């Protein structure tokens, strides 16, 4: 347990891009109410790469939505000391009436980037996600993994130039590689790290793959479910990858089975 951080340590830093304190989220009213999150304290430092792990349905997406300003917490505070974060949703959520290239271009158009630059950037990003030839296809003509990659390219476009042409200082990604084969995933993980290093943006990254989390993240945060709480955090630099993966996997198993037993 060498790599374990105190659950609140990060929250004490002062210059976080986002800081959630005591965040609670309840969906629905009355007897049908579901407490998705309860007492989440989480701060992300500028330029930090945080991976979020947790059982299916524990509230990871809800956390991202609240950081993105799409949902309001039922109680607790979220402070965002940055411009609008760039987001990649769990679903591809492409605009069905736009081609793949147009979808990627959309955040640039909205940010007022000039046409020629937009075009160039779009081509670049499509190449990056290995969809160089599929720019003129409509979403319904793409496979599941291709759609996910278009969404990734769009999120990157938004992260790189989405703030009136400036880079965002926070990127939220919800299982961005779940529909990809192992090799493409490897490549795109590498590209993501390159972008992260080049721009110095902070990243909050949700994944189910512990090895992916350990490979990419500087810090790994584990959520429990029903209700979601931060159970434990690990700083990745502190331990060898394989060992850490083992440890996190074990802890995850514990959390999930304790929930199942409850």
């Amino acid at each position: 347990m060498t790599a374990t951080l105190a659950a609140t340590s990060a929250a004490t830093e002062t210059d976080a891009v986002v800081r959630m304190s005591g965040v609670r989220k309840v969906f629905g009213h009355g007897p049908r109410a579901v407490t998705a999150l309860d007492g989440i304290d989480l701060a992300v430092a500028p330029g930090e790469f945080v991976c979020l792990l947790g059982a299916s349905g524990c509230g990871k997406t809800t956390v991202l939505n609240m950081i993105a300003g799409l949902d309001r917490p039922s109680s607790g505070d979220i402070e965002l000391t940055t411009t609008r974060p760039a987001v990649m949703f769990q679903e591809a959520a492409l605009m069905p009436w736009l081609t793949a290239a147009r979808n990627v271009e959309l955040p640039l158009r909205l940010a007022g980037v000039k046409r020629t630059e937009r075009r160039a950037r779009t081509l670049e990003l499509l190449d990056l996600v290995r969809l160089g030839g599929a720019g003129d296809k409509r979403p319904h003509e793409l496979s599941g993994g291709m759609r996910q990659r278009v969404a990734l390219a769009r999120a990157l476009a938004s992260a790189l130039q989405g703030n009136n042409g400036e880079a965002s200082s926070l990127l939220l990604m919800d299982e961005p590689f779940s529909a990809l084969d192992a090799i493409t995933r490897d490549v795109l993980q590498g590209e993501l790290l390159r972008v992260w290093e080049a721009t110095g943006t902070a990243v909050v990254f949700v994944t189910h793959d512990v090895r992916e989390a350990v490979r990419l993240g500087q810090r790994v945060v584990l959520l429990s479910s029903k209700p979601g709480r931060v159970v434990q955090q690990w700083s990745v630099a502190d331990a060898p990858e394989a060992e850490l993966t083992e440890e996190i996997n074990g802890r995850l198993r514990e959390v999930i089975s304790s929930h199942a037993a409850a």
Partner: protein
Amino acid sequence: MPRPDTVAAPADSVGAGLDALDTPVAAGRQRRLLRAVVAPVIALTLVVAVWQFLWSRAYWPEYQLPAPLDVWRQITRIVGTGEVWEFLWVSVHRAVIGFLISLAVATPLGLLLAKVPLVRAAIGPLISGLQSLPSVAWVPAAVLWFGLNDAAIYTVVLLGAVPSIANGLVAGIDQIPPILPRVGKVLGAGRFDTARHILLPAALPGYLAGLKQGWAFSWRSLMAAELIATSPALGFGLGQYLHNAMALSDMSMVIAGILLIFFVGVGIELLVFRPLERAVLRSRGLGAL
């Protein structure tokens, strides 16, 4: 006396037509065009054949069910004198103008209704109430307020079409998967950008359906207005033609008038709405065809 051949001849060609339509090869644009035009023509031919048959059996007196040929003569007569083009021009250009104005009014109205809960709660039901008012009720009031002129006619058309188009747009927007406006929001779209880049295109299929209904409303309202308000100042449109036919209780002329109005409706559907709808649905991978 019944003439079996007139009935049989179309029946045969119908059979052939149906076979041709069922051939599974997709020969593209030309075929589609053919099908779009041939199929309704065949359907119409069938209707006329039944009509001719009923007429020839003389179940009803001539003044109740005129002969198809009589109606045809009425139509060829006004085509011959060229009057028909005046009627069509007067009515169609007026309907198109009315429709375009309605579009320009109804689109922002629909956006407001769909997206501002207070507006929706306050004037949404009033819009639906307006929609259910018959044009015939407005005509006298409009004539009284604006006089017997185009302003009165456009008022009647707008009162019919605007609520219909606005309601169509609201329904379209209501059906947008909520994830799309959320995506718009995180990509940095403001109110206006959301409307322009997300809501309107996403609602397009529903909006188009509303436009179709709106067109029907505006064309119907126009006809009602023309039927009721007649004046040389208003020109002479299809509605007036039908009006005269009714005043003279001339059934073959009434049916000719109805057919002309009907053909304009069919024409607009085939030339404007069908291709638009097709293109929109196609590009999204939707639609049966």
